[in-house]
C-alpha cells in the first residue's frame, strides 16, 4: 500500500478508530487524539507495516492498542519519577462518562458498567459489540488467543448484563 492508499483507508476507518482509541484511553478524549495521531504517523511513516495477515482494520486496531499501552507506560514512568513534584500541569481528569457528550441515561449506564469491568473484558466487548468484530478478529486485535478472548467475552458479557440489570432495577425503584 502506498501513502495515498493508506491515508484513504485510515480516513475511512477514522470514526471507528477514534471510538477504539477512546476506549483504550478510558474515555479521555485528549489522550485518545494523541494516541490516534501517533498511530497514524507510525503507519504513514512506515514504522508500522501492514503485513496482510489480518484485515486492515484488525491490524490498525492492534497498532492503536499498542500505542495506547506505550503512552500509558510513559505516563506511569513520568509520574513515578521525582520530577512529578515539579509538574504544575494538572493530571488528566479521571474517567467521566458524561464529559462533553450529550449522553442518554442508557449510554451513561453502559459506560459506567463497562468502566467497572477488567481491561480485557472491556476490550473484547467493545470490539465485538461496538466495532462488530468477530471474537477471532477481536483476539487478533488484542494480541491474545481466540480461547482467551472468548473466555473474556463470555465473562464480561455476563457481568455487564448483571450490572445493567442492577442499574435498571435501581432506576425502577427510584421514587
Amino acid at each position: 500500500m502506498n501513502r495515498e492508499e493508506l491515508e484513504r483507508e485510515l480516513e475511512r476507518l477514522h470514526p471507528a478508530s477514534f471510538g477504539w482509541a477512546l476506549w483504550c484511553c478510558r474515555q479521555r478524549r485528549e489522550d485518545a487524539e494523541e494516541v490516534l495521531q501517533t498511530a497514524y504517523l507510525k503507519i504513514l511513516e512506515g514504522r508500522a507495516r501492514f503485513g496482510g495477515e489480518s484485515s486492515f482494520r484488525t491490524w490498525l486496531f492492534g497498532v492503536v492498542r499498542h500505542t495506547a499501552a506505550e503512552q500509558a507506560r510513559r505516563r506511569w514512568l513520568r509520574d513515578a519519577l521525582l520530577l512529578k513534584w515539579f509538574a504544575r500541569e494538572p493530571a488528566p481528569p479521571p474517567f467521566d462518562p458524561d464529559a462533553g457528550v450529550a449522553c442518554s441515561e442508557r449510554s451513561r449506564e453502559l459506560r459506567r458498567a463497562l468502566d467497572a469491568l477488567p481491561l480485557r473484558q472491556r476490550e473484547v466487548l467493545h470490539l465485538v459489540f461496538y466495532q462488530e468484530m468477530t471474537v477471532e478478529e477481536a483476539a487478533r486485535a488484542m494480541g491474545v488467543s481466540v480461547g482467551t478472548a472468548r473466555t473474556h467475552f463470555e465473562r464480561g458479557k455476563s457481568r455487564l448484563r448483571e450490572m445493567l440489570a442492577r442499574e435498571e432495577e435501581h432506576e425502577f425503584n427510584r421514587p
Partner: protein
Amino acid sequence: MSSIGPEEDRNLHQRFAELRRQDTARAPEFAALLRPRAKRTGFSAFSRLAIAVACVLVITVTLARYHSRPPAKPVPSLSEWRSPTDFLLQTPGRELLIGVPRLGEWPQGIAVPGSSPSPIGTKKAI
C-alpha cells in the same frame, strides 16, 4: 464467528450502537490529526526552570565542597608509628620488672640507698 445469541444480545447491540453514534459525532477531523501539533511534555516552563536551577545548585555545592577540603596528611609507615600515649608506660622502677634481680648486684640506673646524703638528715655546722 462470535457466540452472540441474536435474542439475548440484541439489547447490548442497541446500547453499543447508541454509544458508537455519540462517539462518532464527537470524533475529531481526520486531517486535523495529521497536522503536526505541539507535543505535550507535561512540564510547564516554570517546572523546567525549577529543575534546571536545582541541578545547577546541586552541581555547584558538590564542586565547592570538593575543592574546599584540606589536603590529606601523608600517612606514616607502620614501623615508624608511635602511640601518643606511649610515655604513660614509662613508670618509675620499671627496670626492676624487666629482668630477674641477682643477689649482691644492684640494678643499673637505680640509686643505691645511702650512697647520697639525705637532704632531710643533713645538719649544717654553725
